[in-house]
């Protein structure tokens, strides 16, 4: 018999590696991180551009460099990693985690606590229903990123990018550096999906045209993509007749959003939030199954990996406390409600047992002075603007919650001042 696992973490990306560190630092003896790939680090291994970790390390690292530092810390803390190991089932009655590995075979693990850190997936072509043919040459931006940065293949010579999520912007520049042409980036919304600095350093630096309120309305080509039709859209996102334009290209990259990956979470019987697409969690990052915790992009899609790592540390520490029987079952459960201009947020409950950071995105951009706040009178911060592509935060101290024993609800919002 192998010794009992105290905290079992699923996925060795930034959230999972940090969760391992957090669990060990909280005193968990046997902390194991499972990873289905042969290597640790998750998606950051293919994000070879700089821009990661400015807050954590006070310098801008590439994705692999950022993970290198965290993986080293995890090894130093005594976290055990099992690569090439796939979790294929979680039994919600017993919290048994079933794993598969070439050497170890099929195993049933019964840990003291589980941390879900599976990350997210890209929204595929099927999600947006573009008329036309289905030739080769159409990829999600992250798939193309993996081809170029890890497999050493170029997806094509002349690309159109649909959607302006950060990965799409980063891939526009990457294609240029590899000698391809990028005809333009098309975004159906009237604001960019990604960070402004990526529009500056990935598009403007190379003169790549950026078209807002414009989308791809038809795909052309039989075996290989030959071109796309693009058209402007009206305020209801309906293509405007007469604005159609044919664009020749052999590659279409999609950067149209990310979806938390929660197939295993559903098996674990936990509630999934209808808007975030991730587990409903409290500020300890505990899901509705008390033995199961979750952190990172599996919960809500973050802008910055620094936030993902921070949340991983919290989830790991909470899981270690639970496994040691140190989390009181009688924690308060104060619901957080999003106001008029809040599209999504996490966590959805506050316990008052820890200082809480609530991450949120606005529904509509505010281009001017505004205020992010939590009522009743828990937090207020002035902002110069608020944009859907850039997350905002509300911070609430445990003491504030403890001082309000009758608190029934917290409302967060961002409004112009």
């Amino acid at each position, binding site marked *: 018999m192998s010794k009992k696992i105290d905290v079992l973490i699923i996925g060795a990306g930034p959230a999972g590696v940090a969760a391992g560190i957090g669990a060990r630092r909280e005193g968990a003896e046997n902390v194991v991180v499972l990873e289905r790939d042969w290597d640790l680090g998750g998606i950051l291994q293919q994000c*070879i551009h700089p821009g990661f970790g400015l807050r954590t390390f006070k310098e801008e690292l590439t994705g692999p*460099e950022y993970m290198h530092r965290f993986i080293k810390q995890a090894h130093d803390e005594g976290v055990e990693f099992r690569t090439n190991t796939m979790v294929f089932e979680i039994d919600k009655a017993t919290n048994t985690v079933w794993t598969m590995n070439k050497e170890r075979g099929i195993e049933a693990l019964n840990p003291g606590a589980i941390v879900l850190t599976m990350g997210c997936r890209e929204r595929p072509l099927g999600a947006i229903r573009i008329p036309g043919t289905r030739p080769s040459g159409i990829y999600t931006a992250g798939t193309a990123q993996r081809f170029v940065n890890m497999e050493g293949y170029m997806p094509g010579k002349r690309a159109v990018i649909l959607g302006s999520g950060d990965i799409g912007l980063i891939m526009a520049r990457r294609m240029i550096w590899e000698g391809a042409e990028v005809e333009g980036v098309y975004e159906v919304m009237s604001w960019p999906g990604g960070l402004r600095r990526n529009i500056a350093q990935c598009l403007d630096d190379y003169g790549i045209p950026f078209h807002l309120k414009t989308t791809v309305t038809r795909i052309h080509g039989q075996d290989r993509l030959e071109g796309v039709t693009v058209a402007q859209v009206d305020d209801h996102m309906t293509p405007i007749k007469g604005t159609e334009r044919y664009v020749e290209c052999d590659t279409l990259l999609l950067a149209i959003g990310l979806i938390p990956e929660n197939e295993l979470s559903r098996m674990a019987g936990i509630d999934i939030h209808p808007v975030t697409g991730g587990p409903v969690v409290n500020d300890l990052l505990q899901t509705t199954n008390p033995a199961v915790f979750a952190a990172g992009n599996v919960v809500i899609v973050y802008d910055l990996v620094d936030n993902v790592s921070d949340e991983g540390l919290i989830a790991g520490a909470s899981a270690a406390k639970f496994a040691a029987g140190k989390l009181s079952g009688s924690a308060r459960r104060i619901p957080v409600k999003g106001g008029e201009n809040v599209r999504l947020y996490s966590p959805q409950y506050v316990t008052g047992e820890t200082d809480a950071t609530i991450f949120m995105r606005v529904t509509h951009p505010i281009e001017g002075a505004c205020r992010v706040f939590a009522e009743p009178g828990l937090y207020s911060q002035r902002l110069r603007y608020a944009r859907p592509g850039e997350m905002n935060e509300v911070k609430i101290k445990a003491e504030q919650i403890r001082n309000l024993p009758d608190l029934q609800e917290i409302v967060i919002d961002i409004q112009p001042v």
Partner: protein
Amino acid sequence: MSEERKFICVSCPLGCGLTVTLDDAGEVLKVEGNTCARGESYARSEVKDPRRVFASTVRVKGGKLPVCPIRSKTPAPKGKLSEIARAVAELEVNAPVKIGQVLIHNVCGSDVDIVASRDLAAV
């Protein structure tokens, strides 16, 4: 006559809108719109000697992966990026590769080194 130049700061995820005012000789008179010292120095560098960190991959012989990510250790002159891209594209290295290992010293006479940005084991 002074000249105004506007651009987005790329020093951090905030992406502040910067306005730099230059005099006739091209000297910086003032920087506005930044919210930190990094923004001020980025603005000054951007009008005099714009630089970017270059990141790409090199081909690897005998490695766990066919390519290894690289970066310029420090920001490289923006005007030399395509020349640097070509120099990097021609390079092939042998596995194993260590993170931080210098692969091209003083690339294209820019005083900037190209280094590996991950460990890559041999097969």
